[in-house]
């Protein structure tokens, strides 16, 4: 399903992650307590103060830790019995340092691709692609020991994406980054969910950091579910979209007219086409998005991006009184 329109999964589809009474105790510490959550497609933010149980949840879903009790399924597979299958389909960017210092990012990402089952030539191609996407250019041939925190985070992200996973767990990807690098990283996270079509579960201990890039936010507190708010539901309601195409104002207006003919109300906003929430007949999940895609293709225009109208997203939080 598309994350672009911000829709939740279609009825009957398998959730990306589903837990049921998931519990993990370390002696007297209850890291997770009877946790029931459902994660859908798109970007899901997992937010909670330090010690809330975010990392523990991810490690259990990956099979790195065993739960004390309860059950969970990842992409329809049971964590208790199908861990190896899950680990084929999932990418993981851990919270802490995990890069050998005496290897280049390029060599390391190729090797990790192979360890996920990519044939040699594919691993090399995909490693180069993915390193470009995360923004490691010439540095990728240097040993990672000399990298800045930002570069290390990018290399960690690249190894999580190299095997084209269905889902990635990104544990505190903005940790240790300066404000500018933080914005870059969040944009990258958003692109992974929306443009790469990979479901994302991303954590942060900063309340309010992930709302902008997430379709859905889950808040944990002391191992318990505090709130699971579907920003996606709201967008599904109104479904406002922003579209950008190459070719300047002429291309923008050409697209706007064509979309109007297809039944979508839209207007120019700067270089973008802003599409109003679609009328009843076109309000079904993904329909407006598909119209944009097909119309652009028919006109032979190069689509730069489609994204939910951020203005609407912010409205949700303003009216919802969120941090």
């Amino acid at each position, binding site marked *: 399903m598309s994350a672009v329109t911000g829709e939740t999964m279609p009825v009957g589809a398998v959730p990306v992650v589903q837990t049921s009474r998931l519990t993990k105790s370390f002696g007297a510490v209850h890291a997770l307590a009877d946790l029931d959550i459902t994660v859908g497609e798109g970007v899901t933010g997992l937010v909670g103060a330090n010690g809330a149980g975010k990392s523990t949840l991810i490690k259990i879903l990956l099979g790195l830790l065993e739960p004390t009790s309860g059950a969970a399924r990842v992409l329809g597979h049971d964590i208790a019995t199908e861990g190896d299958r899950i*680990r084929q389909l999932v990418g993981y960017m851990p919270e802490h340092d995990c890069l050998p210092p005496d290897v280049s990012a390029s060599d390391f990402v190729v090797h990790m691709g*192979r360890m996920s089952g*990519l044939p040699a030539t594919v691993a090399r191609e995909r490693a180069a692609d993915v390193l470009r996407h995360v923004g490691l250019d010439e540095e990728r041939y240097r040993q990672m020991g000399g990298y800045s925190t930002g570069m290390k985070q990018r290399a960690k992200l690249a190894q999580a994406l190299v095997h*084209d996973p269905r889902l990635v767990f990104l544990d505190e990807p903005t940790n240790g980054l300066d404000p500018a690098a933080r914005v870059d990283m969040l944009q990258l996270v958003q692109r992974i969910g929306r*443009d*790469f*079509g990979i479901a994302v579960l991303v954590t942060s201990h900063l309340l309010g950091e992930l709302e902008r890039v997430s379709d859905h936010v889950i808040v944990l507190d002391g191992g318990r579910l505090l709130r699971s708010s579907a920003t996606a539901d709201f967008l599904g309601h109104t479904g406002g979209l922003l579209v950008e195409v190459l070719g300047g104002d002429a291309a923008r207006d050409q697209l706007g007219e064509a979309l109007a003919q297809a039944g979508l109300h839209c207007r120019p906003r700067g270089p973008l086409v802003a599409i109003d929430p679609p009328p009843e007949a076109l309000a079904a999940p993904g329909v407006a998005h598909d119209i944009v895609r097909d119309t652009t293709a028919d006109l032979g225009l190069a689509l730069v991006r489609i994204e939910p109208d951020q203005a609407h997203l912010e409205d949700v939080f303003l009216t919802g009184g969120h941090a």
Partner: protein
Amino acid sequence: MSQMSDRTGVIHDLGYRGYAGQRESTAALVRHLFLTGLRHAYGLGRSGRSKVLPFLLLGFSVLPAVIVVGVVTFIDADSLPLSYAAYTSQLQMLTSLFAAAQAPVLFSRDLRHRSIVLYLARPLSAALFALTRWASLAVAILAFALLPILVLYVGGLLAGLDVSEQTPDFLKAVVLQVLLASLLATITGVLASVALRRGFAVVASIVVLIVAVGVVLIVQGVADFEGIAHVGEVAGLFSPWTIHNGLAESWDAGSAIGDLDGAWPAVYVVTALGLVAAGLALLAARFTKVGAR
């Protein structure tokens, strides 16, 4: 997700390409990890500096074999001056050093830098990962011990030694080396996975492999001299080298050190295999524990 794959054909600017092709089997993953580890044990695919020590040690251990072959050829001898197993035993210092120095490459790095987490988040299980790492080290050590006796064997045959005499001795020595390499890989691997710092791991391995064999030999010497039964045999169980040498002697592969009769060879083999099995279980547990942190 599915929409994305449709879309990639249209939107060139987004640029992300998925991969819908074949994924390799577990066996292929193990093979890749094994070969990478084996190469790394000799510094191949690593920095130039890391090749120096393994190849220097290898050179030192092959050199005497080349000299022996030269002498055998020159004086036209009809046998080697020492058996293959005895040669292996003579080089225990170099082989122990190789194992001690290279085990951290395979057993400390992933744990110290925590890249183990990235491996364990992939399809191979912790147990299979540990087993594969161990196999890389064991085969690296085997290759180290095997090369010089291969030089002896091939050189000896070229110098006119009798094939039917040499071959059984050579093959016995190889079998003993497999057991020896397994023991050395287990001991140095476990120590490296616990010590993490390379210096500690190397020192601990050298103490266990080189100092222990000295202590065992002293105990065996005393027991022999005093004529005390079984003490020497039991002491021999405490070093992979005395296990190797004892078995070599009892199997008539000739190491001239130690001697085993009765049920002792069986006890030695069972002890060796038990130690390897226990070590592998320890390694798997260690990787699992660090991977969950």
